C-alpha cells in the first residue's frame, strides 16, 4: 500500500461543523490527535520518580486533581498511581519509547491511549455554565482554578476536565473516551443552544 494511512478523529463527522457560532458566548471545538499516554507507577519508588522526572523534564503531579506542565507536555493526576501525559500531536510514541526505556526493570505500566480519547474545548464567558448543566462539580474559579483537573461525570460520560482560562476568558478542556465523544459533543451542543444569539 503506497498511500499514507488516513486517520480520523472521533469527531471527524461533527466536530468540524461549528455547532455553536462565533457570536455565541460559548464555543465548542475538538483538539484531536494529541499524544496521550497513560502511566502507572509507584511514587514511593525513587527509581520510578527519578526516571519519569528525568524524561519529562519535571516532576509528576502528586497532588490529587492537579496538572503539571513541562514545556509542551502536560501531565494530569488521575489517581495515586496513575497519570495521563498529553503531548503535542505526533510526539506521543517517541515519548513512550523513551519513557519505556528509562523505566526498564521496574514495575510500571505505560499505555498509548492517543486514539482512545480525544479532547473537547469549551470556551467563552458561559463555558462554565454550559458544563454545569451536565456536571455536578463545583466549577467556580474559587473551587476549580487553572492548573486543576478532575475526573468526573459529564452527562452520561466520564471525562477528565481541566481549566485553562486564557486572556479571552474561561476555557475548559475535556478529555473523553473516543466512543463517547460524539454523544458528549451532541450533549454540549444541545445545552449550548441557549447561548446562541438568536
Amino acid at each position, binding site marked *: 500500500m503506497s498511500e499514507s494511512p488516513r486517520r480520523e478523529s472521533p469527531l471527524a463527522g461533527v466536530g468540524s461543523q461549528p455547532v455553536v457560532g462565533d457570536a455565541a458566548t460559548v464555543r465548542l471545538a475538538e483538539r484531536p490527535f494529541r499524544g496521550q499516554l497513560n502511566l502507572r507507577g509507584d511514587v514511593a519508588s525513587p527509581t520510578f520518580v527519578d526516571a519519569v522526572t528525568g524524561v519529562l523534564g519535571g516532576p509528576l503531579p502528586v497532588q490529587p486533581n492537579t496538572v503539571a506542565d513541562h514545556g509542551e507536555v502536560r501531565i494530569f493526576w488521575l489517581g495515586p498511581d496513575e497519570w495521563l501525559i498529553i503531548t503535542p500531536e505526533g510526539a506521543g510514541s517517541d515519548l513512550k519509547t523513551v519513557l519505556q526505556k528509562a523505566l526498564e526493570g521496574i514495575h510500571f505500566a505505560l499505555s498509548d491511549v*492517543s486514539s482512545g480519547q480525544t479532547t473537547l474545548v469549551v470556551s467563552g464567558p458561559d463555558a462554565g455554565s454550559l458544563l454545569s448543566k451536565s456536571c455536578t462539580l463545583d466549577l467556580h474559579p474559587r473551587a476549580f482554578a487553572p492548573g486543576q483537573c478532575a475526573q468526573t461525570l459529564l452527562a452520561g460520560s466520564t471525562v477528565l476536565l481541566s481549566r485553562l482560562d486564557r486572556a479571552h476568558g474561561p476555557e475548559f478542556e475535556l478529555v473523553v473516551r473516543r466512543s463517547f465523544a460524539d454523544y458528549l459533543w451532541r450533549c454540549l451542543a444541545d445545552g449550548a443552544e441557549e447561548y446562541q444569539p438568536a
Partner: protein
Amino acid sequence: MTQPRRLPQGGRIDRSRELAFSFNGRPLQGYAGDTLAAALLANDVRLVARSFKYHRPRGIVGAGAEEPNALLQLGGGGHTLPHQRATQVELYAGLEAVSVNGWPSLEFDLMAINSRLAGLLPAGFYYKTFMWPQRFWGRYEHQIRRAAGLGRAPMEADPDRYDKTHVHCDVLIAGGGPAGLAAALAAGRSGARVILADEQAEFGGGLLGSREQLDGRPATDWVKAAVAELRGLPEVRMLPRSTVFGYYDHNLLTIAERVTDHLPPGISAGPRQRLWRVRAGRVVIAAGAIERPLVFGNNDRPGVMQASAVSTYLNRYAVAPGRAAAVFTNNDSAYRSALDLLDAGVEVAAVVDVRLRVDGELPARVRAAGIAVHSGYALVDVQGGKRVEGARLMALDSDGRGFSSAYPVGLRCDLIAMSGGWSPAVHLHSQSGGKPRFDETLAAFVPGTSCQAEVSVGAARGCFDLSGCLQEGFEAGAAAARAQGFEARPGAPMPAAVIIAQAPMMPMWRVPSWRGVKGPKQFVDFQNDTSAADIALAAREGYRSVEHVKRYTALGFGTDQGKLGNINGMAILAETLGQDIPSTGTTTFRPPYTPVSIGTLVGRTVGDLFDPLRKTAIHEWHVEHGAEFENVGQWKRPWYYPRQGESLDQAVYRECLAARRTVGVMDASTLGKIDVRGPDAAEFLNRVYTNGWTKLGVGRCRYGLMLGEDGMVMDDGVTARLADDHYYMTTTTGGAAHVMGWLERWLQTEWPDLKVYLTSVTDQWATVAVVGPQSRGVLAALCQDIDFAAEAFPFMAFREGTVAGVAARVFRISFSGELSYEINVPADYGRHVWEAVMAAGAAFDITPYGTESMHVLRAEKGFIIVGQDTDGSVTPDDLGMSWILAKNKDYLGRRSLLRPDSVRTDRKQMVGLKTLQPGFVLPEGAQLVDDPDAAKPVPMLGHVTSSYHSPCLGRSIALALIRNGRQRHGDVVYAPLSDGRIVRAEICDPVFYDPEGARQNV
C-alpha cells in the same frame, strides 16, 4: 364594565398594559402584574372549580402556593397544562384557562348529584361496597375512574425544552421576603456565594401585599433597594419564579425555575423550566408562614378566603374580592385585613373573633374605625351556593366547645376573610430531616432541631413581626456566611418597622357544629372534600394514627399537599381522640413543596440524549453502507447490512455464506480490552480465570472463562500474552465495564500485594475481524511484515506488524470456526484499515457482516454467548466446559462449584437441538418438555437459548439448556409454543459444524 372589582388606584400592576385572556371561553381583561387569580377576581369571577368528590362549587381561597381550589387547565394541544394554580400563574396576553371538574359546565355540573348523595359517600365508603358480584368490580371501577382525576394530560409530545444545572454555593436562601432579603444582604455583602430563590415573580414576599412601613416609608421601597443592592453583588445569584422544592441529604436542594411560563406558549426560545440542583454549604429557610383557614359550616363557599389573601388582592393587585366583608378570626393579624378592606372602600360588616377578650392595638384601630367586633363569637354557617351571600354567627361558651346562644344570627356579606392563625412553612426543614415541634403559644408547628446545616428565620420560624424577621434574617445570613469562612462586611443597617404588639391567638381547630351531626359540612381539606366529620369517622372506625387518617380520608393528599388543611385536620383528630397535638403528630413532609413538571426533572436527557450512545471508529462507514443497528449495552453495533430489498434473514444468509465460503469482515471494536501489566500479571489471571495462564507463551492467545464468586459464568474472552509481564485481555461488549470494575476491586481490596496494573484500552483499539477461507489472502495483501503462513502464524497466536500502513496487532483467533484474523489498530486508523480491508477483499467479494451473522456462525460451532446462553445460573460444567477448570489452583468462584447444588447430576446442560422439521426455526426462549400433554404445571426441561437458520447446513439449529442434557443426545423433546404449536426437536451435540475444528486450523 370590565374588571368591575378592580380598585381605581394602587397595587403593583401595570395599568398601561391591559391583557386579554379567557376563562371557560369567556373573554376577560386583566393587567400585567396580575396573577390569573387576581384577574379573575377583578372580573368578579367567584366560581372557579368543582370539588373533587362532591362537586361543590369552589372559589379562590388564597393568593399563593397554598391554593387548594383554583386549579385550572391552561392552553391547548401539546401546550396544555393541567392543574395550574391560578394564584401563581402570571397573566399573559391570550391566556386561556378552563376549569377542570364540572360537566357539562362549571355552572351546571351534573356530578353535583354527589353532593346530594354525600350521606352515602363518607370517607372510605368504597372499601365497604362494590364487592358484589365479584366480577362486577371492573364495571364499578370504570365508573369510579371516570369520575376521578382533575385535569387532562396533553395527548401530544411536549413541544417545550427543559434544562438542568448543578451549582454550589455557600448560602442558599429559600424565600425572598423580608427575612430572606435580609439574610441575603448579610451573606452577600461578606463575599460568600449566595443563592436567593423565591417562587414569586418579584422579591419581597409578604411585604408586596401589605402596607407595612419601614423607616417611615413603604416597605416596598426598602425591598426595591435591597434587590438592587443584591443584584450588584457579583457572588449573589437571584432566582425569581424559583421554588425550592426539595431538601435532600448532604445539603442538596432542588429548585424549579419557571423560566418562560409567564410568557405566552410557543413564542419563547429558551427552556420552559430549569431544574437547579444546589449543593449548599448552609441553608437559610425564609419561606414565610401560611395562614390557616377556620373550620366552620359551609366554609368552602366561593368568597370565603384567607384574610391575608384578601389583603394581598387589595394591596398588591388592587382588587377587592367582595363588596361587603365579614372577617372571622382567632388572632390579631386578620384585623390588618379589616383595615385594608376599609381603606380600600370595602364595607366590613363585622369582625367575628372567637376570643372572649379582644383588646390588642389592631382591634382597637378597627373598633375606632367604627367596625363591629363580635368577640366570643364564631361563624357557624355560610349562606349562598356559588357565592357567599351571608353568614351566621353564634356566641361561644366560655371554653369554645359549645354555644352560649341558642340560635345564630345572620350577617350580610359576600366575602369572608378568615384567619385561624399561622403555620410556619416547616416543609423544607422537615424534608431536611428536622422534626417540627409544636409551639403552644403560636398553636403551630415550628422548626425543631436541625439535622443538616440549615436554619429557619422569620415567619418560617414563627416570628411574625417585621422587625424581628429582618433582624433574624440578617443575623442568620451573617452567621451562615461566617460558618463558610466569610466575615461580615458593613452595609446599610436593617430598617426599623413600627412594632405593633399582637395579643395571643386562641386555638380554634373546629367551630362547634351548631346542629350537631346534622350541621352543614365543615371542610378541613377543600381539595379532597375532607370534612371534620370524616376525620371523626376515621377515628371512630379505628383509623387512629394520623397517617391512617390521611390515607382513609385523603386529608392532605391533593395537589396542595394539605398546606391549608393539614394542621387543622391533625388537631381535630387529636381533639377527637382526646390526646394532645404533639403526640398526634404530623404526617410526613415530602418533596416536592409544590408539584414539579416531569419534564423539568428530566431536563435534556431526552431522545438521543436519553442515554450515551457509543460509536466505534467505523460507525459512519456502517451508516453509509446501510447497516441496521442493534443496541448492545450503550453501543450501537451493526446488526446486518441489507442490500436493496433484503430482509434480515436474506441478508444474514448471504453474510454467513460469505464468511464460510470466501471472506467476511466484522467490526469487533466494541469488545472490552484491558492491558494487564506487571510481574504478577500471570498470577492475577490465574486467580480471576478458571484456567491456568503461567504457561501461556509470549505471542500466544488463550480463551478464558471468568466466574462470579458464586461459581456462575460471568464473562469470557481471549487474552494474549504480549510480553512476560504484559497481557492483553478482551471481554464481552456488554460486560466490559463490569469486568474492569471487578478486576480492579479484587486488586485493590483483596490482593493489594499483587504487582499488577490494569488499564482499559477498549477505545484505543479498533478491531476488524477478517473471517473466512480467503482471509489469509486479504491479510497478506495488506501486510508485508507478518508471515501469514499457517506454521509461521498458527491458530491462537498473535503478531505485530503493519497493516495498511498502520502498526497493528493481529490475532489469529476465531469466533466463527473459520480461518480468521482480528486486526487491532489504533482507533484513529480504524476506518482507514477497514476500508483497506474492503478494498483488498474486493477480489474475493468480501462481505461485511453484523452481529446477527456473527451469532449464527458461532452457534454453528456451539460457541456460547455469555448473557444469551447463560443467565447467572449456569456453571462451566453446565456448558460442557469442565475442561477449562484448572484442578491445581484456586480461582474466583471455584469453591462455589463444590456446593451441593453445583454438583447435582441433573443440572441443565448445554446441548444442541435439531428440529425434526429442518426448516423450522425455534423461537429463542421456547421451553422444552418431555410430555407436552402433561397437566399444568408442565414439568420443564429447559429452554432454547439461541436459535437460527444455518445457511451452510441448510437447516435450523439451536442451542438449549436441558436438564441432564448431555446424557440425552438423540432424545426427542417438545417445544410447546405460545401460539399453540408444538415443535419436536432432537437433542444433539452443540457443535453443528466442523466438530474437529479443521477449518480454523488451516
